[in-house]
């Protein structure tokens, strides 16, 4: 909560990562010979986004609860049966990051819409970032006028025929992404504009603007395609500028706004690993209800973390209020309240 405005450690890491990115761009594009100068604004936007994301991520990691989780999950991951852990990691990544299965029980429509946005965004990132960095580029095969070759980091990856279905899919990949994003975003926008619970708690910049931005990027991107394919480049330059502006806004906003959750989400797997490993070590039993309620590891760590954050729930006898389950805590509060009422003359009312 109480982040310092300036964090040297994070600044250092972020600067290093940004520098590294630029170095990789330089070499990945073969000393810039594959670099498309028209994309230079995008490049700066992306590098700045990288800087922001890493900075923010580093600040975030330094928070005691986050660091505790980060530290513990990495430690669990790399001790003992590493292969089993990696399998678990892989499975969890597919379930939670790729498929986002936890959204499904909240509502299947929400899941479909979110999956569309996620798939659209991820595929777009996968295409545009390497493209911007000059890591991907397409050339005609040396002895042909109908075979295209795709290169990554200067190495040939694949080839395909011009005019083939595969070529159609590849050259229009960003259009497919756009449609997915538009579909999902419109669903969410509609939901946010009609669901009273959301209307009450959402904010324009935090919840509506991101959706509007996603739609703007996708629509302008699509317009570019339609402009040069069907309208002989009508308003192409104008559209290109608008598109660039929305994309760059999106990029530099990632670290600060809603989109940071994309970067943050893998922590969920950390939480799962933490719980799984904690269960192996044993459960905490609530002294009030007599029932298991959390892993002992979790309770012990929380005692440390809360102290680091300036909270101390330790009783005089050395036990902690945190030893109680949520139900136990509620009951103890009620018992304390009853006792206080009885001790002051016994009137429970008035």
């Amino acid at each position: 909560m109480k982040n310092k405005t300036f964090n040297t450690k994070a600044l250092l890491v972020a600067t290093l990562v940004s520098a590294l990115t630029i170095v990789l761009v330089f070499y990945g594009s073969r000393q810039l010979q594959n670099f498309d100068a028209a994309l230079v604004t995008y490049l700066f936007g992306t590098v700045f986004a990288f800087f922001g994301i890493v900075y923010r991520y580093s600040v975030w990691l330094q928070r005691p609860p986050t660091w505790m989780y980060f530290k513990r999950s990495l430690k669990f991951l790399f001790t003992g049966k590493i292969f089993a852990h990696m399998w678990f990691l892989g499975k969890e990544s597919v379930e939670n990051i790729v498929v986002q299965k936890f959204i499904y029980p909240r509502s299947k429509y929400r899941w479909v819409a979110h999956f569309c946005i996620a798939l659209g965004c991820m595929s777009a990132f996968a295409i545009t970032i390497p493209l911007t960095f000059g890591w991907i580029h397409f050339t005609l095969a040396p002895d042909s006028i109908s075979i295209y070759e795709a290169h990554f980091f200067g190495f040939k990856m694949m080839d395909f025929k011009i005019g083939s279905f595969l070529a159609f899919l590849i050259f229009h990949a960003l259009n497919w992404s756009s449609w997915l994003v538009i579909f999902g975003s419109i669903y969410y926008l509609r939901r946010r504009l009609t669901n009273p619970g959301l209307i009450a708690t959402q904010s324009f910049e935090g919840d509506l603007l991101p959706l509007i931005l996603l739609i703007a990027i996708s629509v302008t991107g699509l317009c570019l395609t339609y402009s040069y394919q069907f309208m002989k480049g009508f308003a192409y330059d104008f559209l290109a500028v608008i598109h660039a502006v929305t994309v760059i806004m999106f990029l530099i906003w990632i670290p600060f706004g809603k989109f940071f959750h994309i970067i943050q989400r893998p922590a969920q797997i950390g939480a799962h690993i933490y719980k799984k490993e904690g269960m192996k070590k044993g459960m905490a039993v609530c002294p009030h209800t007599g029932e298991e309620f959390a892993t002992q590891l979790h309770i012990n760590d929380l005692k440390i973390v809360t102290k680091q954050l300036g909270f101390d729930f330790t009783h005089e006898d050395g036990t902690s209020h945190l030893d109680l389950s949520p139900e136990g805590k509620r009951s103890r509060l009620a018992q304390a309240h009853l006792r206080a009422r009885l001790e002051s003359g016994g009137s429970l009312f008035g």
Partner: protein
Amino acid sequence: MNLTNFNRNEEFFVDLQRCIGCKACEMACAECETNGQESLISVNYVERSSTIQTTVQVCMHCEDPVCANVCPADAISQDEFGIVHTANTERCIGCSNCVMACPFGVPKKMEEYDLMMKCTMCYDRTSVGKKPMCATVCPSGALFYGTRAEIEEMRPNSTPINTFIFGQETVHTKVNIMMPKGSNELRIY
């Protein structure tokens, strides 16, 4: 957010000994628009084998909320009215830190959703000047939402307090608990 109509004069007052355990509040809580048919208030027997006593717990909306502090994902925020909001759905990683750290046992981990949800004092209602669902329906007055003047008139022999002591920690909250007249705090053993 609909900040315009939040009534700053009205407060939440809880009196645990009036609770009859009927769970009208739990049912009503689920009807709150922000909660998607999930009940975020808790009613439970204190120790059923020996007493019929029940307790009811809404979020106390701490001034310095432990839940938000221990959240590794910055998913819990507090607004200008002191309302501590439920986990931001896109950020919450379902770790349960808040569930286990809250001294009042308020946040609920919805295992199916891998998400924490908690009481927002019916933000959809309070932000437009209505009373929270639970306090509106509570048939026993264990939950009351209104002005200080109203509660003083109704229960002249009780004092609302918002200071709670858990071990070494003193917690101040937005929500009040009704105590014997002249009390300043409630110490939880």
